[in-house]
């Protein structure tokens, strides 16, 4: 009985699957040193950045794709991917919202992005990355009054090269892993944030990523620096059109929190997951890491992962500063043939550092959901503490939930706690709800939302609503 209802309600349609007909200016498919140079040339980059890209590319050539994750996919032909695709606009590039192609703005409207006045009402500043290029950043002025720098990565390279040079690759070096090396070589744009000392960023910062062009990989890079005593909350959303072929998304996100700084980074990832047969969908191979460099600093990751054919991502925190805090809150939903291998790493270096991991995996259809986590207490991490809770909810007979926690403690005063549970929506729960007049689909949605509650409450308000809506689409029912 439970299965039948869940099958009915889980079969979602992907509502962001439209393609926008916009002329784009792309470099021919394939990857070579020349392509790396061409990307850098088109972006008119300083020499140090080109040199860094080339080192990354040379290093990437020596690597092979990682095979340890519990995901299966055909070999990716990196020569068939387009590494640079920018929407062509009439002038050299959009200078303001008025210059942005109206079709693009329409796309954002369809996505429900609060770009125009809606943004103002919501108090959200949006940097929208379409394929590879950042097209518009709203509220630059208001932010610059506060001294906050929020701009596309390209603009940051032009206007603040010293910050880029100082921090780029210091949290995720290009040698980190296969996809980080690839991204470092070919990344085309992304977002940059700098919050000066003592500033509490006056609004939530937000980025939307969308892959539009076919055969295009998206390789964006986000760098956020929170200087001493500052605070920022950053939101990231993603969608892509429905296409039969797989598309690659290999992003890198680096966060740096200096003394007493706090960064809250929230993601609602809804890349196209592929169809019911497992055709198409995004390969989401992302490296996200934050460094709590200063004492009493804090980095908090919250992610809602409902999209992508394959998700491979481990937003992590390196807790260097004494008394620093790392948090990871995650909901990952896999349906049909989706595969998610996700989790976090908490590396405790400083004294009295604390970390919390709350991971909620929901599997339906033939979805495979893996939690992979590492908690490491280095010899210097006196009295460090970690709490991990890792729950799985199964909605079908054919799905799977897996957990691979690794705990490595080198300091005898450190404390580590790990709790895990696996449950399924029972006939009892469904019958109970139905006896109270609640339809089966509303009941499933309510039970799943209840399961995710600990994570949802960490999201900023407007994102919490969006996250619930996403699960609503996935599980078709009313939630509030």
């Amino acid at each position: 009985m439970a299965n039948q209802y869940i099958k009915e309600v889980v079969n979602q349609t992907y509502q962001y699957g439209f393609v926008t007909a916009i002329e784009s200016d792309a470099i021919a498919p394939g990857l070579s040193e020349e392509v790396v140079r061409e990307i850098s040339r088109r972006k008119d980059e300083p020499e140090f950045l080109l040199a860094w890209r080339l080192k990354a590319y040379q290093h990437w050539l020596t690597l092979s794709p990682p095979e340890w994750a519990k995901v299966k996919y055909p070999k990716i032909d990196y020569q068939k991917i387009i590494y640079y695709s920018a929407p062509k606009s009439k002038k050299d590039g959009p200078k303001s919202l008025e210059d942005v192609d109206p079709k693009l703005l329409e796309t954002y409207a369809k996505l429900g992005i609060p770009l125009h006045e809606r943004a103002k009402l919501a108090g959200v500043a949006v940097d929208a990355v379409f394929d590879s290029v950042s097209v518009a950043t709203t509220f630059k002025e208001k932010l610059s009054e506060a001294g906050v720098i929020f701009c596309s990565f390209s603009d940051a390279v032009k206007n603040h090269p010293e910050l880029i040079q100082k921090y780029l690759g210091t949290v995720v070096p290009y040698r980190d892993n296969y996809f980080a090396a690839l991204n470092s070589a070919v990344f085309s744009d992304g977002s940059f944030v700098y919050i000066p000392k003592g500033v509490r960023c006056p609004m939530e910062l937000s980025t939307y990523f969308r892959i539009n062009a076919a055969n295009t990989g998206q390789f964006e890079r986000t760098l956020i620096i929170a200087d001493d005593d500052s605070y920022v909350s950053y939101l990231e959303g993603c969608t892509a059109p429905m296409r039969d072929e797989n598309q690659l998304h290999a992003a890198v996100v680096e966060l740096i929190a200096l003394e007493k700084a706090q960064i809250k980074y929230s993601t609602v990832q809804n890349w196209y997951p592929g169809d019911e047969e497992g055709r198409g969908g995004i390969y989401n191979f992302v490296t996200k890491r934050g460094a709590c460099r200063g004492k009493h600093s804090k980095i908090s990751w919250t992610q809602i992962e409902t999209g992508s054919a394959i998700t491979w991502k481990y937003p992590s925190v390196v807790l260097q500063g004494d008394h620093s805090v790392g948090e990871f809150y995650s909901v990952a939903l896999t349906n049909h043939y989706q595969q998610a291998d996700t989790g976090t790493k908490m590396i405790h270096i400083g004294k009295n550092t604390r970390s919390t991991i709350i991971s909620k995996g929901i599997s339906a259809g033939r979805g495979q959901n893996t939690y992979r986590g590492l908690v490491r207490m280095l010899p210097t991490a006196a009295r460090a503490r970690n709490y991990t809770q890792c729950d799985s909810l199964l909605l079908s007979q054919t799905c799977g939930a897996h957990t691979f926690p690794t705990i490595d403690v080198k300091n005898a005063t450190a404390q580590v706690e790990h709790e895990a549970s696996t449950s399924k929506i029972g006939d009892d729960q469904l019958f109970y709800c139905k006896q109270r007049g609640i339809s089966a689909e509303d009941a499933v949605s309510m039970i799943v939302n209840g399961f995710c509650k600990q994570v949802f409450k960490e999201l900023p308000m407007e994102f919490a609503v969006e996250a619930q809506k996403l699960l609503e689409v996935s599980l078709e029912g009313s939630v509030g």
Partner: protein
Amino acid sequence: MLAIKNLHASISQPILRGINLTINPGEVHAIMGPNGSGKSTLSNVLAGREEYQVTDGEVQLNGKDLLSMQPEERAAQGLFLAFQYPVEIPGVNNMYFLKAAVNSIRKQRNLSPLDAVDFIQLIKSKIKEIGFDESFLHRAVNEGFSGGEKKRNEVLQMMMLEPHLAILDETDSGLDIDALQMVAKGVNSLRDGKRSFLVVTHYQRLLNYIVPDVVHVMVQGKIIKSGGKELALELEEKGYGWLEGNP
């Protein structure tokens, strides 16, 4: 109100073997019987639990064919089951659950949903009657509740949903005397001369507080004897063995 004719039902093997029962508006009927006699099966079949197969007979609620309805439609028609083992729903706020239940029943009855303010006023007046404090509304549905709290939560739901026919499935099991009185008080507050009750119980004790109009004795899937409230006392004294050999 409720008319059951020759009801047969099974779950892997026949359990109900021809139940006949009529409950008029405003009446309280008690069903007593030994373990395994089919009392809980009857409750579950009436509420529409799908594991049970109805193999014969018919059931009408207010003149409508109950057995062809989905469980949520039965609820909208005014049938309420207070569960013997209330189910936990982790992470789902008790008040949110109640509001969803009230409003989905209102929707099925073509009534406009209660807004948050009206709903909160209504529920605050009800929790006082049942002796809960407000913190109870903000806990997850039945999660970590004691046995008594779970049963009281069932009665609270019943008070909020205002059913035409309430079935209490062994609501007294696991209750101490104070909780029992509280539950009975809630039930009695709903007795208004129109609403009907079917009280399924193992012991006579509950019937001291919820006084029935009719008592039925169920043995091996059949009602073998019916009588007034004094029948319950007689059973308490003599046990079921007294009737079993003598249908």
